[in-house]
């Protein structure tokens, strides 16, 4: 998927400022949120964004229904004033649906975790509750670090490493960076084994490890997973 190499490097400009609080600001359909926080100022190739990237942004930043509908159809007329008791859905049911829409896990609190990538000069923070699946998280992290891939995607999302030329070779093999996380017990686990909601609850910290380090991790992780199965 070489088309994905075209990216907006403006977005990946480095600066020495703090990474900023909300890395996934819920802004409708544009990339300003990232630009504000990821200001790398390396001024490399200022290529325009590909469509694919903007879609990823939409997926990441527009988790709620309203936002995606806004992005799709800007020409839509403004919402009609709601009439009392119409549509005829009982208030009991309406109230239950409202509580259904709360994020799973039961609490409204965000779940910010630090994300570190081996060799990167700085950490990032993500709110795991902003995503509904590993794919969404993967996309978000890809956007953030631009050189990170999840093992299970098999390299389709390989991207240019903004850091230095050396890592370009690493990217051909998508297993070079392995996502792992520290769980509540303090153990480092491989990302992707447990159902997503469980992951959101147990993950304390994310680390994108270099392949060589991951080899040592794998057996221990497998043992733990087996015992939980």
């Amino acid at each position, binding site marked *: 998927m070489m088309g994905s190499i075209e990216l907006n490097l403006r977005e990946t400009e480095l600066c020495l400022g703090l990474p900023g609080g909300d890395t996934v600001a819920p802004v409708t359909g544009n990339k300003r949120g990232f630009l504000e926080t990821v200001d790398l100022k390396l001024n490399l190739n200022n290529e325009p964004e590909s469509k694919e990237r903007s879609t990823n942004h939409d997926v990441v930043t527009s988790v709620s*229904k309203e936002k995606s509908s806004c992005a799709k159809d800007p020409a839509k007329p403004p919402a009609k004033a709601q009439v009392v008791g119409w549509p005829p*859905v009982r208030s*009991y049911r309406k109230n*239950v*649906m409202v509580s259904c829409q709360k994020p799973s896990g039961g609490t409204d609190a965000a779940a910010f975790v630090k994300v570190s990538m081996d060799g990167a000069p700085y950490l990032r923070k993500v709110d795991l509750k902003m995503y509904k699946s590993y794919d969404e998280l993967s996309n978000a992290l890809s956007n953030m670090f631009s050189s990170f891939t999840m093992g299970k995607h098999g390299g389709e999302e390989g991207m240019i490493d903004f850091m230095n030329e050396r890592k370009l070779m690493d990217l051909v093999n998508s297993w070079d960076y392995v996502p792992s996380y520290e769980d509540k017990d303090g153990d480092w686990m491989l990302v992707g084994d447990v159902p*997503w909601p469980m992951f959101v609850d147990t993950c304390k910290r994310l680390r994108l490890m270099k392949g060589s380090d991951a080899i040592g991790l794998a057996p221990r992780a497998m043992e733990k997973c087996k015992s939980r199965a």
Partner: protein
Amino acid sequence: MSEDESPPLDLRPEPPCSSSSAVDSTPNKSRNCISSSTASQTFPDHVLENVLENVLQFLDSRCDRNAASLVCKLWWKVEALTRSEVFIGNCYALSPARLTQRFKRVKSLVLKGKPRFADFNLMPPDWGANFAPWVSTMAKAYPWLEKVDLKRIFVTDDDLALVAESFPGFKELILVCCEGFGTSGIAIVANKCRKLKVLDLIESEVTDDEVDWISCFPEDVTCLESLAFDCVEAPINFKALEGLVGRSPFLKKLRLNRFVSLEELHRLLLGAPQLTSLGTGSFSHDNEAHHQSEQEPDYAAAFLACKSVVCLSGFRELMPEYLPAIFPVCANLTSLNFSYANISPDMFKPIIHKCHKLQVFWALDSICDEGLQAVAATCKELRELRIFPFDPREDSEGPVSELGLQAISEGCRKLESILYFCQRMTNAAVIAMSENCPELTVFRLCIMGRHRPDHVTGKPMDEGFGAIVKNCKKLTRLAVSGLLTDQAFRYMGEYGKLIRTLSVAFAGDSDMALRHVLEGCPRLQKLEIRDSPFGDVALRSGMHRYYNMRFVWMSACSLSKGCCKDVARAMPNLVVEVIGSDDDDDNRDYVETLYMYRSLDGPRKDAPKFPLLREKAPCISDRSCSEVEQAWVCLQYQRRYSSLEPLRGGTGGVKAISNYGLVLEGMRRAKARGFSDVSH
């Protein structure tokens, strides 16, 4: 059949003969040749009463009982003695005193209160429908009462306490769409009703009084067969619940609320494999418990052990990845309720493909047309379908459309009842359903955008609904929506001969529409209309019908107060409630809401003062209550029997049995002409 506490037949005081009595609502004396005083009652009459009692006790259907009670005074009396379940469709149609005076041996009461449109915030919150006067009257009259089934009634904790104290043999409490009580009231019932078999709280508002009501059940083995508390928005003591389920060997139906996690459900299932109906609670895992246990419980195995489960609901906070755990029970399911679970088609299809026996299916429109196509492909036995909107706003995205409806009509030919919320629809799909599903008795289509036409042709939805009333010969309930002209109502009046309930919103062009319905639908009992251009002419055109209907609701139409007053004046036994808005100075004649219903006991005394204005015919206040009641009763009987041969010579002796058939035939003919009975 006779209760021990009830006095035996021959010692019971006989009702007085006088026709001017306020309490005796028996037929006109001249028609009845059986004397009612004990002294003059002859031996054969006494025997006849016993015989009749032994025969009539087997009548279950209230329609049959109503018919039998109108044969003559004796039959009225005996039927009243043998009726043990009483159904009251409108709690304001009569007073509790009238109930206890007529029926002496009631074991079960079904009572309905507010009209359905109250669910949609169209009524003041303190409008009424209180259980208090009913329970206090029944506490004295029916100490042997076993069952109370209430819908849209305001029930307080005190009322529940009175139930628990007054009825030692109390067995079943069912509260549907009720409010006014909390967990403390439930606790009292749980604690004191030692013979309790059924405690069903369904879609009711239950305040959280922070009472551990589950622990209030007695410690020994219970009689519980059904426990439904999925609407109770309060955490429960799980350990107590587990204990309760463990000592309830007869428990068949259990509906948990969303405060019961998946792990807890798992433990309950292991302890109660005999369940037939299960509400699963949250169907998501509790974080704390989950991390403490090393191993994830085998949910599928627990479901596999529940071989008897045929009815599944709940999924209040569904974690979709655990849904496959229900696979083992899918093949047995006859009823599945996913209407609180936001499931996508991909999650849904693997499940529905296993549910071959499904007859009742409720879901959210998140399953999309694709999900409905899967239902149509698999559920050939489907009788009832309800699709609710996940996003119940007028301009939301609509994931289901005419495609889903068409698919269902083609795949589920035995469909009898459908409720379908959508954003777009076509006449073609509705016509297809009318042709493919001849068994339909309930058709409720809600196109959520007001006045929305067929989205393919741009035409009104007249032809679609017209086809429904024309082709579905068994149709008794209809709810319409979308852009509709008077033509749709012309069809309803012409073809909707069996329709009993009609719901109309934002439809029609003129008074003619409502006239078509009022003049053409002889079986119409419940009419609810909102935001439609029907005015005084239409209202007046139905005056010949209103005594034969349970209620008429019209809100945001074009009615004037003057006309409502005229109707009230002309129909003394109709209670006409008019709700106007308080800042109505500009339009003092405008009627915001009209709710009118027949009543044997005149206007109610518990109406809120403001903004409700209750209109009653001025002539009623001048006459005594008994005269009015007698006039009402006589009116009914004269109308009913004008086309029958009067029964001369009485029904004494064994001859009555052979005469019965003749009388019933007359009844049947009268009913076919649209006469209804008194009890409703």
